[in-house]
């Protein structure tokens, strides 16, 4: 029985580890400035925890086989209540490992979440509602117009869904879209809002996720570094249509972005 356990535990360890090491399934391609740092820290954590996993499982399998009862030929049991030196040693070692790992990643977190967006960032207000994402650009005046809950008409979509107050002069040049378009290599400031329940704005390729919470306007930022289409998902359970609360982030060159924005502004006139 000891041998069966050893084989099972070792095989499971081998197979599980293979798919991680072979990267059969792995993180999606990272297309933001923060992605390499996050992915690197993921890999470091992955290697350290992977070693712990493999060593502990191999040891478990080996020990249950080695110390199986073998009738009268069994070796004498070691009568021991433990070893304080070893207890202290592995307490200190695991503390260093876990806390050290944590501190190593703190600078990335700080740069992602502690500092505000740069002054020249593209500002996009992102609003989640059951079950769609809307994106609003402030237009040439740099000001978002007022929105009013009582003006909201979700079925009409676009500006009406956000309850944009057209009487407010600042709202005249606001652009509301169902697709998020941003220029490459420029920081994007997102201002996250939600109308009804909590949603979560998740762009896997940007290594970006943040809940959109009703009653809060959450300011965040990221910098896309590759042009192309990126899928946007909702990552917080928001109701029956959660699975289809899908959007698209198009990262384009600055020229294309300017052209696209000019077209949207022209449509408004």
């Amino acid at each position, binding site marked *: 029985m000891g041998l069966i356990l050893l084989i099972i535990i070792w095989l499971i360890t081998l197979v599980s580890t293979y798919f991680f090491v072979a990267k*059969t399934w792995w993180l999606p391609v990272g297309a933001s400035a923060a992605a390499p740092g996050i992915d690197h*820290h*993921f890999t470091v954590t992955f290697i350290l925890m992977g070693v712990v996993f493999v060593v502990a499982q191999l040891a478990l399998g080996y020990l249950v086989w080695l*110390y199986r009862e073998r009738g009268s030929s069994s070796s004498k049991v070691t009568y021991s209540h433990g070893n304080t030196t*070893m207890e202290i040693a592995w307490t200190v070692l695991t503390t260093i490992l876990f806390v050290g790992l*944590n501190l190593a990643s703190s600078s990335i977190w700080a740069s992602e979440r502690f500092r505000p967006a740069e002054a020249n960032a593209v500002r996009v207000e992102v609003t989640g509602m059951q079950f769609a994402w809307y994106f609003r650009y402030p237009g040439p005046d740099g000001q978002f117009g007022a929105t009013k*809950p009582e003006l909201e008409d979700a079925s009409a979509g676009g500006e009406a869904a956000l309850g944009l107050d057209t009487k407010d002069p600042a709202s005249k040049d606001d652009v509301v879209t169902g697709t998020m378009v941003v220029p490459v290599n420029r920081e994007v400031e997102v201002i996250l809002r939600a109308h009804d*329940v909590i949603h979560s704005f998740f762009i896997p390729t940007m290594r970006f996720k943040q809940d959109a919470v009703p009653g809060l306007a959450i300011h965040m930022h990221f910098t896309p570094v590759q042009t192309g289409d990126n899928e946007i998902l909702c990552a917080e359970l928001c109701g*029956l249509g959660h699975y289809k609360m899908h959007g698209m982030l198009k990262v384009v060159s600055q020229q294309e972005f300017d052209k696209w924005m000019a077209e949207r502004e022209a449509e408004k006139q």
Partner: protein
Amino acid sequence: MATHEFAAQESHAHAAPQGFIRKWVFSLDHKVIGLQYYFLALAAVFVGMFLSLLMRIHLIWPTATLPLLGDIKPETYLTLVTMHGTIMVFFVLTTAPQGGFGNYFLPIQIGAPDMAFPVLNMLSFWTTFLGFVVMIAAFFVAGGAPLHGWTGYAPLSALQSAGPGEGLGADLWIISIAIFCIGALMGALNFITTTLDMRAKGMTMMRMPLTCWAWFVTAILGLLAFGVLLSGGILLLMDRNLGTSFFVPLVTINGQLTGHRGGSPLLWQHLFWFFGHPEVYIAILPAMGMCSQLLSVFSRKPIFGYKAMVYAIMAIGFLGFMVWGHHMFMSGMSPYTAFAFSIMTMAIGVPSAIKTFNWLGTLWGGRIRFTSPMLFAIGFVSLFVVGGISGPFLAQPVLDIQLHDTYFVPAHFHLIMGVASIFGIFAATYYWFPKMFGRMMNETLALWHFLFSFIGTYAIFMPMHYLGMAGMPRRYSQLTEVAYLHNLIPLQKFITYAAFVTIAGQLIFVVNLFWSMFKGKKASDNPWEATTLEWTTATPPPHDNFGGRTPVVHNGPYEYSVPGAPRDYVMQSDPEIKSAH
């Protein structure tokens, strides 16, 4: 202290009841109540498992029509998610290890005739039972059961118009949890008092089996955590029905104002996770105690580092209250607090690692008997390790950005608080079945049950890590709307097939359980040659546990293979041995 203990014990002695109702239904006997909890959990686990099977079927065959349910709509799927999680966490993982085995064996292991408050004990079971009935009732009301997930995040859970199932079904869901909290609070008081006041002469705290330490600390966690959830639940009910706005700011549903303003959705998350994280340890600590016990018994060796194990249980319990914010890194709470929650969470890995080292240290140099309880204890260690090492990924906010609310999270918590705890329950069942029913369970069936469960668990939950890394979000009823998820559907299929096989393996357990109850081999009083007090009494134990005798304890709980001793185990009630501490 000793005199006081005896006085306490005598005042709690009560005559053996006559008649079916007093003996088996409204019983005051902790052993009967323990069995009641156990069978309630057994019923609940089959409901929960059935729901998970339907989820798995729907995920890979979204258009399939199912018997009883017909077409599964997206909201039906979310209902399954919600009820599976809630039933498993409350009525299985909290109910069986603590209410079931704790009730049955804590008094016997510490040498007491019953729990400190037998009437309270009976009330706590029937309260829990009522909670279960109300929970199941949620399926049958108009609109059905809620779809807001077991975490019940507001405003989704606070607004009747937020979705199907958020009407009466959601009210019943909250009421059921509130009732459960009341039952759990009564139970916690009883466990704490019993442990402190009812120990037999010589049963010092540091001679208690680690199972008792685990139940004791779990009870303290329960006392501190369930009160908070209860208050949160009451506030949520008020938001839903009385027009208050604790958790709901000004929101519109489909463009319609709801009349709420000024509340904080994050407040619910704080209250919920202040309960929710300790709850993880409420589920796993008894399994840890169980596993420690069994590794020692079946390695025929003292537990490695008894004191370190006790301190580790305490440290886990203590730190468990300071880490709730790691569920909220992406919630919009201050990013600065993430630092503190993250460090505390990583710190909780230290006592967990100590326990793992000590389990391996216990096996080292032993003479291992591969009995059915031991198989599940070894399986527990393996699952605890694999479930544990994904913790440091999620505990770091930087990595949580990508992994939060993906399948990586269900992979992590199912392995550690779900299946590892379930393995603890299985191990305890195989181990104590002879004491509870006077018969042995079938070892061959148990071996097959173990193989199905152990391999099946890895087959189901290992791939969920891969899904999570690849960015598959949780709680998606269909995987067809997002292009990059299409590539991952084969992996989902594999998980569903694995679930079929694993669940089929659980039928072996059920057959073994009920067959052995009537047809199993007769058990002796101490079939495992173990040292703790439950093995010094008759099988099954008499009404007062020790047949009028009051045990006196002279030794620690894990004196195996003591040099010079006549047998390879020294009972706790045997004359004192020199080498014991």
